[in-house]
C-alpha cells in the first residue's frame, strides 16, 4: 500500500501522544516538583519487576525441572486473570482482617507480585523449554555441574530474562489500579495515580497541563523498555528430561495460588458476605447492584467490552487476508498497547475535548479500541505465522480463488486464534480501569470506576461485592480453551 497512507495512519494513531508531548512540554515547570515522586515511581516499578521476575522465574524454573504438566498452569493463570485492582481490593480487606496495615509500598508490591509473577512465568517457561531443555540435556549427559552448568545455561536465557523484565517494568510502571486502591488513600503516589489526582485536583490552575507533564515523564521512563519488548515465543515441544523435585514445583504452585488468589478471595468474601459491625451473614450484592453508579457502570462496561471485542474481531477478520498490512498496523498500534494507558487517556482528552464525543462512552470505546487492537492483531499474527498463511497459499496454488481459499481454509483454521484474541480482550475491557478512571464522565462510568468511587465513598462492602463478581467472571475464563497467545 502507498507510503503516504501509512504515514497518515501513523499520524492519526500517534496524535494523542504527540499532542500530549506538546502540552507536557509547555508545563515543564511542574517537573522539578514531581521529580522525587517520579524517582519513587521508577524505583517501585523496578522493585516490583524484580520481585515478579524472581517469583515467576523461580516457579518457571521449578516447573521446568519438575517437567510439571501444563495443567498446573491453571493455578497461576487464575491469579493472572483476576483484574489487578480487584486483587488489590481483596488484599486490602484480607490484610485488614489479619490486623495488618495494607496501604503503601508493601501492599502495592504484594498485589503486583500476586498478579504479575504469573506473567513472568508465562513469558519464561516457553523460553526455558525452547532454549534450555536441549542444553540441560547436554549438561546432564556430559556431567557438567555447579558453576560450569550455570555458565552453560545462564547466557542463553539472558535475553529472555531481560525481555521479561522489560515487559514487567512497562506493565508495572503504567499500572493504575493497584496503586489507586492501595496507594492513594495513604498519599503514596505513582506517576499514573499522580496524573489522575492532578487531573481531578480542584487546587490546580491547569489540571490538564499538569497531567500531561506527568504523562510525558511517564512516557520517558517507559520508552527504554518499549525497545526491549520482544515477540512472543510459540508453544514448545517437551523434551525427555528427568523430572527433578516435582513436589517442590507443586508446592510452589499451590502456595502461590493460595496467597495470590485464596487470600484476596477470602478478604472479598468476608467483606461482601458479612456485616462489618454485627458479623451477621448479610450479602451486599443487592445493595451494590441497587447503586445507580454500579448499574450504569455494569451497562457501560458490558456494552463497551462487547462492542470493542466485536469490532476488533471484525478488524482481525478483515485484515487476515492481508498479513503484511496486519503486521504493519499491529506494530503501529503496539504504541498504545505497550505504553502506559495513562498517556493514551490524557492524549485523547487533549485531542477530543473540543469535540462532541468528549465525555461520552464513545470516547471510551475509541480508547479501548486503540489500547487493545494490538492484542487482537497479535493473536491473528500468531495464527497466520503458525501455518494458516501458508496453508491458504497452498490452497491458492491448487487453483482456489482468494474468497474460497479464505472461507474454506483460512478462517476455519484461524478461528481458534481469533477466539484466543477475544478471550484476551474481553476480560481486560470488562474490568478496565486505567483509561476509564481518566476518561469517565457522568453517564459514561464503567464498573472499574464504580468500584473506585464506592471505595472512595466508604461503601467498602459494595465494592467487595462488585469485586467478587468481576473475579468470578474472570475465573470463568479458566474453563475456556486457550491457544498460542501468551500475556
Amino acid at each position: 500500500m502507498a507510503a503516504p497512507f501509512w504515514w497518515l495512519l501513523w499520524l492519526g494513531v500517534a496524535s494523542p501522544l504527540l499532542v500530549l508531548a506538546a502540552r507536557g512540554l509547555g508545563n515543564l515547570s511542574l517537573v522539578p516538583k514531581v521529580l522525587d515522586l517520579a524517582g519513587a515511581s521508577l524505583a517501585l516499578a523496578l522493585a516490583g519487576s524484580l520481585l515478579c521476575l524472581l517469583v515467576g522465574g523461580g516457579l518457571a524454573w521449578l516447573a521446568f525441572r519438575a517437567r510439571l504438566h501444563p495443567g498446573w498452569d491453571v493455578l497461576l493463570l487464575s491469579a493472572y486473570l483476576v483484574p489487578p485492582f480487584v486483587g488489590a481490593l481483596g488484599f486490602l480487606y484480607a490484610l485488614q482482617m489479619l490486623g495488618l496495615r495494607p496501604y503503601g509500598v508493601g501492599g502495592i508490591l504484594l498485589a503486583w507480585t500476586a498478579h504479575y509473577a504469573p506473567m513472568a512465568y508465562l513469558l519464561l517457561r516457553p523460553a526455558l523449554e525452547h532454549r534450555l531443555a536441549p542444553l540441560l540435556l547436554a549438561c546432564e549427559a556430559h556431567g557438567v555441574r555447579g558453576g560450569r552448568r550455570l555458565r552453560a545455561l545462564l547466557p542463553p536465557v539472558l535475553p529472555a530474562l531481560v525481555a521479561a523484565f522489560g515487559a514487567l517494568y512497562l506493565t508495572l510502571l503504567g499500572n493504575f489500579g493497584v496503586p489507586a486502591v492501595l496507594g492513594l488513600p495513604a498519599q503514596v503516589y505513582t506517576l499514573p495515580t499522580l496524573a489522575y489526582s492532578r487531573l481531578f485536583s480542584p487546587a490546580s490552575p491547569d489540571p490538564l497541563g499538569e497531567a500531561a507533564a506527568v504523562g510525558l515523564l511517564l512516557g520517558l521512563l517507559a520508552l527504554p523498555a518499549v525497545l526491549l519488548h520482544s515477540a512472543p515465543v510459540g508453544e514448545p515441544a517437551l523434551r525427555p528430561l528427568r523430572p527433578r523435585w516435582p513436589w517442590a514445583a507443586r508446592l510452589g504452585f499451590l502456595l502461590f495460588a493460595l496467597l495470590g488468589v485464596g487470600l484476596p478471595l477470602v478478604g472479598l468474601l468476608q467483606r461482601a458476605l458479612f456485616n462489618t459491625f454485627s458479623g451477621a451473614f448479610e450479602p451486599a450484592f443487592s445493595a451494590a447492584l441497587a447503586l445507580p453508579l454500579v448499574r450504569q457502570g455494569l451497562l457501560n462496561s458490558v456494552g463497551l467490552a462487547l462492542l470493542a471485542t466485536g469490532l476488533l474481531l471484525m478488524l482481525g477478520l478483515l485484515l487476515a487476508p492481508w498479513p503484511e498490512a496486519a503486521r504493519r498496523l499491529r506494530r503501529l498500534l503496539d504504541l498504545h498497547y505497550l505504553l502506559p494507558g495513562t498517556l493514551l487517556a490524557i492524549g485523547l482528552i487533549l485531542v477530543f475535548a473540543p469535540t462532541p464525543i468528549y465525555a461520552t462512552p464513545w470516547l471510551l470505546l475509541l480508547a479501548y479500541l486503540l489500547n487493545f487492537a494490538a492484542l487482537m492483531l497479535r493473536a491473528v499474527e500468531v495464527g497466520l505465522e503458525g501455518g494458516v498463511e501458508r496453508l491458504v497459499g497452498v490452497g491458492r496454488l491448487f487453483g482456489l480463488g482468494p474468497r474460497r481459499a479464505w472461507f474454506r481454509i483460512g478462517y476455519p483454521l484461524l478461528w481458534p486464534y481469533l477466539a484466543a484474541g477475544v478471550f484476551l480482550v474481553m476480560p481486560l475491557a470488562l474490568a478496565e480501569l486505567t483509561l476509564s478512571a481518566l476518561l469517565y464522565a457522568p453517564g459514561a462510568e464503567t464498573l472499574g470506576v464504580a468500584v473506585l468511587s464506592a471505595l472512595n465513598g466508604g461503601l467498602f462492602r459494595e465494592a467487595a461485592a462488585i469485586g467478587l463478581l468481576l473475579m468470578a467472571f474472570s475465573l470463568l475464563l479458566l474453563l475456556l480453551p486457550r491457544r498460542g497467545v501468551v500475556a
Partner: protein
Amino acid sequence: MLRIEGLTKSFGKAGVHQVSLGLGRGQILALLGASGSGKTTLLNLVAGLLLPDSGRIFLDGEDVTNLPPERRGLAYVFQDHALWPHLTVLEHLLLVMKEPRKEEALALLERVGLLGLERRRPHQLSGGQKQRVALARALAARPRLLLLDEPYSALDPVLREELRLEVASLLRAEGVGALHVTHDPDEALAVADRVAVLEGGRIVQEGLPAEVYARPNSLAAARAFGRLNLLPVEVRGGQVGWDGVVWPVEGVQEGPGFLAFRYEELVPSPAGLLARVEASYDGRGERLCRVRLGWGEAVVKLEALPGQEVRLAPVGLLRVFPR
C-alpha cells in the same frame, strides 16, 4: 510442455542463475543437487510462489511467468505434506477438483491405497498415509504439471521405495509431467526420465539419469550421485601413473586434478595397480572394500578380505576434474 528460459532469481545463497530447461508431456525431470543449490527455489519459481528477476516460464506454450500461482494449473507435493488440518481426506480432494465428483475422488483414493480412510483428518493418519493424501490431492487437481519437493524424505526406506515407484507409474498412466526435487540419487535414478544437476543455482548437467551417473561432466554432477572416490593426481600427457602402471584419463590432460571414479569402476585385473585391502564391509547386497591405492584410499566393489593385496584396473576411461 514446460519450457524455462534464462530464469534468474537472486535469493540469498539459494538463488538460481540463467536456468533453462525443457520437459516433454508426461516426462519426469529430477532436479538433483546439494542443499542450498537452488532446487526448491527453482520449484517455487515455477509454482509462482516466487517471481523471477529475469527469464521466462512457459506451460504448454503459454507464458505464465507473471501469472499468480492459482492461474498456472499446477499441483505441488510438499516435503511436509501441507495438508489442511480441518479437512477430511475426501474433502482435500473435492476442494481442489475443478468439477467435484465424489465417485471420481473415491476412485483416485482407491488408486493410492487410501480407500476406507476418506473420513479421516490428517492428525489421524500415519506419515505414509499423509504423503498419499498429498499425492492424491495433487492428482485430483488434474494439473498441467506436478511439482514434488523431496516428497519421500520423511518416510521409512521401504515405504519410500514402494511409493516412489507407484507414483512414477501413476504419473505416467495419467500422462502428467513432473518436476521432482530430490537429493537422493537412488530416487532420481528410480523415477526420472531425465535428470538436471544444480550447483550454486546453475544447471551443470542435464540428461538421462544413467548417462549423468556414468559420465558426469563436472565434479558437482559426479558428487550429486554419490558412490564417488576422489583422489588427488598429477596428469601427464593425458595419463595418470603410479609404480609403472599408467591409466589414460579424460578431462584434465595436464597438471593437478581429482581422479573421480565410482565404487564399481575399478575391477581386479592382473595388469592393474597394486592395492591393499584395509577393511571390508557389506554394502546393500554387495561387498565393499576400503583399499589403499598409490594416490590414497578409495572404496571399491570387491570380494576380498582385509590385509589381502589385489591388482585393480579401470573398466573404462576414468575422469580427472580440475583441482
